[in-house]
Every structure is written in structure tokens, then in C-alpha cells.
């Protein structure tokens, strides 16, 4: 709770988003260097990070960002053309800014200096028109005589509310050399109109220092954008300005008598804002109007409450069903309509487009392909497909693993590709789409494909399968998710240690998702992740076993059939069903759950599947479909297998949700113990 009001924490969160936006913008900019909008977006992100960073005490980050921002400002004005080297440096600089913000203690100052030097090298490259300030820096840097400067500045009226302390600025100026400070009070209103929280003063400082102009400018680095600032060099033989009465007129006019004038007007007169800042303000307005920031826990609470409302409404509906009072019935229907609408909206709040996740992989692919010396293009489709926010966060790691694997093992080098008659550039495609109640995320590469023989050999070596066992492709490919399974011949920094793919499997299982792999030798591999739309609600099939009612996630259900009396009477031995020619093992839930209640005469079998593996679950009765709010089980039931959670039914009682992965594995175990018998008979 305390974090929510900690401004530094808010800044960290905000800057993380801004940096992510910056990164994707930079990568796009690399492809389209002429795009003004992209430049503006990048500049705005840097500008905001600098401004808020300074406000919340991230001075190192703000100072560093300032230099990068200057470079982008020059690109915006056309003084400098974006090129891939500059973008590469900017990307590295972005990482450095992140380090400065998140772990300032660990940030490498030398790295920062190196990056700044690279930025400077790029911005000073021939062909770029040197800006006045850079030129003066060079002049000042060459010989640094003691000079007199006249500095006049007027802070924005609300500067103090925003955390600027003019005293600190003045102290900093005094620290540079011999300073004479005079306050300009002409704008101070009469006492009755005076608002003590607003800054009506301006200052006129005469500073004699050996420091260059840029050092003086750096004092104002964090307030520059809202400050009327004039810095004039005063010729040593013309110190008239010091004694001169304050210029009564606003805005302050640079002294004509100055031998050389370097004017830095970061903010033009109020009446004529530069287009850029106007644009920026408009963008900020648009942002505040279209989105607000809400802590995720609050959304979770809302979801819980709505879930309970839906349950209560279902109970009301049941009670009303018997009633003949039309008025009450119409109210109940109204409540049903409202609560369904509320549920849909609440679920929608948590949904974010998956593009925000996909965007992060551009950088990954760019960096990895450079490291591996492979030319790889990443394309995407379906970025606007929406998925639960929590889900998106948790998909990050598995997708990184899969993409790394594709790059490292799947895709060949350009030479190998050319030799194989493929275009030298490798291709990875990310796509997302809705399919029923699921979202399908596909990662496709056009590399060499999975090596069936090597997977088989490895699996036999690790005794995961019996030598010569007949496996379908899907079954074979599932083996790569086994912990410690790696067919890579050599270890690289990226992959080959056999960890990774089992992490993918575990994460996707935890999200109640499925993984399908299709691979064609020399044509590539396609991995498809099937995920539920949300973690909070699932569509389930409600079944009865004995007296207990259970929910089977609907996405796993293939069909329901009646258990043939023949199979039913065989209480032991072959627990197999013939489903259109395929043998499907089945589990009697009555036995698994040790039910004593007498069985129904006609037992039903619900066929469930993950990927290509199928298992039948024998139940007493299929009750129908049921949309359900998932509640996790407490720690006290952590050791209970077969269930992934619980839910509350319309009548207020609790029903358990069956754990599909667990049951399928159990069913496969049944199948394997029976298989040798079948072969022998």
C-alpha cells in the first residue's frame, strides 16, 4: 500500500513504460528513419523521463537523459539525420537509463560516459550543422578564462508547486564562482493578491567564473523548459550591466553591449509556444482523457466482487424460477442483465493488446541475431488481440525461451540457408488470434525444423521412451519439454542446457494453456500456445460423480459418449474405449474419488485432451455447461492432486475444478501399463 503513494515508485513504473515505448520507437525508427512522428515520440519519452526524473530525485538518470534528449532534439530539427549507429547507441543508452533508474547503485558510470561520448561523436559528425551551444562549448572548453556572465531567469509561476526550489539554483550558481544575486520584484502582485505558493520573482545574477557556459546551463537543466532564461557573456571591460538598473520591461532583453552573446532561450514568450510543446501538451491531454492508472490489486478486488455478484445473481435466478410473481421476475431479469454486463466490462478492463508484449521481442531478436551473426527478420500479426494483463506478464519468459530457441537452433546461418536453397534472411513470425474461448499465440520460424531422430535418440538415451516405441510426431515433440532434455550438441550462451523448454511447459500449464508443436524438416517449426482469455473465469462442463459435482474446463473437452455396458462390466483389466477406431484409455472418477454412493445405470464418458493425447473420464451424469469464477485452493490442500481450483455454483455450494494435465498424465499411465499386455495377447 505504501508503494502506491511513493512518488519514486510511481516514477519507476512510469519510466519503465516510457522506456519500453522508447525502445519500440527506436526500433521502428531504424527501419523508417524519415518518420517524424517516431522521432517526436522518442523525444517526448526522453523529455518526460528527464523531467520527472529530476523531480523525484533521479538526478543521474535525468542528467544522462538530457544529453540523449539533446541529440534527439537535433534530429527533430533536422540538424542531424537518424542512422543505425546512432539508434544502436540510443538503445544502449536506453538500457543505461533503465539501470540508472532501477538500480542506481549498480549502474556503471564509465558505461554512461562511454555512451555519451558515442552520442557526442555522432552528433558532432561531419555534415551536421553545429548548434550554437555546442560551438560555444567547444570554444569555452578550449580555453577557460575567468569570465563574467549575466544570468537572468524567471521560473514558471507554478515551479515551486512542482518541487523546484529557486534557492538551490542560486546556491548552485554561487558555487560556480563569485556571484551577485539580485531579485527582480516588479512582477510581485500587491499583498492582497499575493499567492505565496506561486513564484512571482525573477533573478538577475552576475557570475564571475572560470567554468564554461555549459556548466551554467547545466544548473538549469531540470527547469529549462519552463523557465525564461538568458545567459549573456559580459565583456570584462564592459561590466556596465552589473550596476545597471533592472530592465523594467518583460521579457528580459539581452544586453546589446555584450561583446559576444550566447543566448539560450529555452522558452519563448508565453503568447507563442513552439509547436512542439503545444503538441506535447495536446498529447498529454489526450492521454489523461483516455486512460488512468489503477493498481492491479484493485482490479482483482473488483473482479472478486463481481464474481460474487454473478454467483449471488445465479442463486436469485434459481429461487425466482419457482415464483409466479411477475414483478419480482422482471426485477430478477434486470439484475441478471446488469450483472452480466458488469462482468463483461470488468473482464474487459483487465484486457490489454498483446502487441505490448510482442513489441519487446523486436529488441531481443535484433540483439540475438547480431550476436549469432544470423540475419533474421521478425514479423508479427494480430498485435491487437486482447489478453488478460496478468497473463501477458507471465507469457514474457516462455516466449523469450521459444524465440531464443528458434534463433539459436531453428534458424540456420545465411550460408547454410543459401546452400539449402532458402533466402539468406531467416524469418520468425509471431501471431495471435482468438479461437473460441482461447487465444492462440503462434511462433513460426522457417529454419531447419526439429530433428526427429535426434530427439528420439536422446529420449531413448535418457530412458524417457522405450527403444523402438511408436510415437506420433506430437508425442515425440512433447519430449523436448522434459526437464534436462536438450539435443543441442554445443552449449551456447543462449541455449542448450536443457533448461528453458520445461520452464515454458510449466508456465503454460500453470496458465491452463496448451502447447502444440508442428515441424517440417528444412521448412521450419511452428509452436502454438493455446491460452484461456482470462485467469479469473473459465467455461466449464459441470459433471456429477456420486454426490459430488465437478467442473471440467470446457476447452479440454472433446466429446461426451455413453460408456458401453460391455466396457462398464469389465471392472478390471483393459480400461479402453474405441472412439472411431482409436483406443482411448479411460479413468473411472468414481474409483479415483473413492465414491460409495451407488452408480447411475448409464455411466457417461467425457473425452478430454491436451494436444493429441486423449483420456476419457467416467462420470455419473453430465449436468451442462457452466461459466465459473475460479478460486484457488488453500495451502492446506496443496498436496491434493487432480484439482486445479474450486468454484462456487449457483446454489452457493463449492465445486472442484479438475486438473486436466494431471488427469491426462494419469490416464496415459493407465494406457502404458495396459499396452504391453495388449501386445502380448
Amino acid at each position, binding site marked *: 500500500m505504501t508503494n502506491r503513494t511513493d512518488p519514486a515508485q510511481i516514477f519507476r513504473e512510469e519510466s519503465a513504460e516510457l522506456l519500453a515505448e522508447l525502445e519500440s520507437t527506436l526500433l521502428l525508427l531504424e527501419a523508417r528513419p524519415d518518420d517524424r512522428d517516431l522521432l517526436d515520440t522518442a523525444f517526448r519519452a526522453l523529455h518526460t523521463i528527464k523531467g520527472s526524473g529530476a523531480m523525484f530525485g533521479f538526478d543521474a538518470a535525468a542528467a544522462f537523459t538530457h544529453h540523449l534528449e539533446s541529440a534527439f532534439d537535433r534530429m527533430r530539427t533536422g540538424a542531424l539525420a537518424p542512422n543505425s549507429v546512432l539508434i544502436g547507441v540510443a538503445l544502449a543508452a536506453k538500457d543505461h537509463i533503465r539501470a540508472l533508474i532501477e538500480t542506481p547503485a549498480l549502474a556503471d558510470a564509465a558505461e554512461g560516459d562511454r555512451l555519451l561520448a558515442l552520442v557526442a561523436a555522432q552528433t558532432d559528425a561531419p555534415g551536421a550543422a553545429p548548434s550554437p551551444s555546442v560551438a560555444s562549448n567547444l570554444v569555452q572548453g578550449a580555453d577557460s578564462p575567468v569570465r563574467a556572465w549575466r544570468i537572468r531567469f524567471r521560473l514558471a509561476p507554478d515551479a515551486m508547486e512542482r518541487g523546484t526550489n529557486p534557492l538551490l539554483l542560486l546556491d548552485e550558481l554561487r558555487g560556480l564562482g563569485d556571484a551577485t544575486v539580485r531579485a527582480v520584484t516588479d512582477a510581485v502582485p500587491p499583498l492582497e493578491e499575493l499567492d505565496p505558493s506561486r513564484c512571482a520573482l525573477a533573478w538577475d545574477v552576475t557570475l564571475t567564473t572560470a567554468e564554461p557556459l555549459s556548466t551554467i546551463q547545466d544548473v538549469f537543466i531540470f527547469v529549462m523548459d519552463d523557465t525564461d532564461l538568458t545567459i549573456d557573456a559580459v565583456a570584462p571591460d564592459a561590466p556596465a550591466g552589473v550596476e545597471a538598473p533592472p530592465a523594467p520591461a518583460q521579457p528580459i532583453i539581452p544586453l546589446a553591449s555584450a561583446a559576444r552573446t550566447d543566448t539560450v532561450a529555452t522558452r519563448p514568450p508565453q503568447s507563442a509556444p513552439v509547436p512542439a510543446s503545444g503538441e506535447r501538451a495536446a498529447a498529454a491531454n489526450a492521454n489523461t482523457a483516455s486512460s488512468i492508472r489503477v493498481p492491479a490489486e484493485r482490479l482483482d478486488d473488483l473482479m472478486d466482487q463481481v464474481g460474487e455478484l454473478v454467483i449471488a445473481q445465479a442463486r436469485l435466478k434459481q429461487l425466482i424460477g419457482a415464483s409466479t410473481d411477475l414483478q419480482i421476475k422482471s426485477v430478477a431479469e434486470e439484475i441478471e442483465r446488469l450483472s452480466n454486463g458488469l462482468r463483461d466490462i470488468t473482464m474487459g478492463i483487465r484486457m490489454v493488446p498483446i502487441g505490448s508484449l510482442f513489441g519487446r521481442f523486436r529488441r531481443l531478436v535484433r540483439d540475438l541475431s547480431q550476436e549469432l551473426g544470423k540475419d533474421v527478420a521478425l514479423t508479427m500479426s494480430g498485435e491487437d488481440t486482447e489478453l488478460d494483463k496478468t497473463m501477458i506478464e507471465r507469457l514474457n519468459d516462455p516466449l523469450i525461451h521459444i524465440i531464443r530457441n528458434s534463433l539459436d537452433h531453428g534458424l540456420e546461418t545465411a550460408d547454410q540457408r543459401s546452400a539449402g536453397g532458402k533466402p539468406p534472411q531467416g524469418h520468425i513470425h509471431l501471431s495471435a488470434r482468438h479461437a473460441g474461448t482461447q487465444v492462440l499465440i503462434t511462433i513460426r520460424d522457417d529454419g531447419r525444423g526439429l530433428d526427429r531422430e535426434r530427439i528420439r535418440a536422446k529420449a531413448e538415451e535418457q530412458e524417457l521412451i522405450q527403444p523402438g516405441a511408436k510415437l506420433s510426431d506430437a508425442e515425440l515433440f512433447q519430449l523436448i519439454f522434459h526437464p534436462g532434455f536438450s539435443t543441442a550438441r554445443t552449449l551456447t550462451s543462449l541455449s542448450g542446457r536443457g533448461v528453458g523448454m520445461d520452464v515454458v511447459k510449466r508456465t503454460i500449464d500453470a496458465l491452463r494453456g496448451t502447447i502444440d508443436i508442428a515441424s517440417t524438416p528444412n521448412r521450419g517449426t511452428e509452436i502454438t500456445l493455446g491460452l484461456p482469455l482470462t485467469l479469473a473465469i473459465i467455461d466449464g462442463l459441470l459433471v456429477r460423480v456420486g454426490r459430488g459435482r465437478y467442473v471440467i474446463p470446457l476447452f479440454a473437452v472433446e466429446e461426451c459418449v455413453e460408456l458401453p455396458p460391455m466396457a462398464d462390466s469389465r471392472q478390471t483389466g483393459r480400461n479402453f474405449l474405441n472412439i472411431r477406431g482409436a483406443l482411448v484409455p479411460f479413468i473411472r472418477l468414481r474409483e*479415483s*474419488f473413492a465414491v460409495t454412493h451407488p452408480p447411475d445405470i448409464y455411466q457417461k464418458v467425457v473425452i478430454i485432451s491436451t494436444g493429441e493425447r486423449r483420456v476419457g473420464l467416467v462420470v455419473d451424469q453430465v449436468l451442462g455447461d457452466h461459466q465459473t469464477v475460479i*478460486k484457488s485452493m488453500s*495451502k*492446506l*490442500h496443496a498436496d491434493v492432486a*487432480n484439482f486445479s481450483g474450486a468454484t*462456487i455454483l449457483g446454489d*452457493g455450494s*463449492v465445486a472442484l475444478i479438475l486438473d486436466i494435465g494431471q488427469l491426462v498424465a494419469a490416464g496415459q499411465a493407465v494406457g502404458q501399463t495396459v499396452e504391453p499386455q495388449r501386445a502380448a495377447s
Partner: protein
Amino acid sequence: MTDSLSQSFEALTLNLGGELFAIDANCVHEILDLIPQTDVPGAHPFVDRLINVRGKVVPLADLRIKFDMERTPPTIDTRIVVVEITLDDEPTVVGLLADKVYEVTTIGGASIEKTPDIGMRWRPDFIRGIGKRGADFIVIPDIVRILSVH
């Protein structure tokens, strides 16, 4: 719940298998009449059921199992005491079955004695102390300990 029992505390007294028990009243959320329960196949008999407490799925624990008492069928006096305790640093809400609930009362620190080493049918680590109340003995169970040990 405090570790030290030397101070007096507010306790809810209840009956389990004919014995008088006391639970720290501060951790009690509410007391419910019997409500529909759902069996959890495969769970330890001690926590083999779930209940719905105001939209939350809560495990229902039967302390009688841990004290080797007979699992008698519920009567008109049977209640569910909903308590919140800390298990592995996580607040956990658990329902406790009670054959009968009496009252909230103050148990004086002076009247509490350490668990005697002998003469006990039960695991000594499940008991935090024995209080005296007139001629009656009151068992003060260590709920966290009981729920942590399977």
C-alpha cells in the same frame, strides 16, 4: 495469537468430543451454522471438505481427527468457527468444526498451566496450555501447529 500464555486473553470456548477448548477470540471471524460442504477426494481426512464463506472457498478442518476423537455426526448444536491464521507467512482463512460453541470469556494468565508431559492422550505440541475454570479444565490448542502438521 501470542506465543506467551502468561497474559490473560479473550477466548472463545467450545466443545470438541466432550472436552472444553478455548480459541483466541481475536482470530475468530465469525461463527456459522452448518452449511453445505463439498468433499475433496484425496485430501487428508482432517481437511477433506470445503465450504463457501461469503463467496470465498474455505477449507473446513475437523480438529477431532487430530485429537483422535470420534467423528460423530453433526447435531443441532454443531457450528463452524471461521478463523484467520498465518500459515507460512500467508493469512489463511479456515473453518473449524465445533460440537458446540459456548461463549467469549477471559482466561486469566495465572490460571494457565504448561502442558503436562505425562497423562496426555494427545500430541503435546498440539496444546499450548491447559487453563482452569472452576473445576473444569480448558484445553488451549495450538491451531497453527495443528494445521501445519499433516
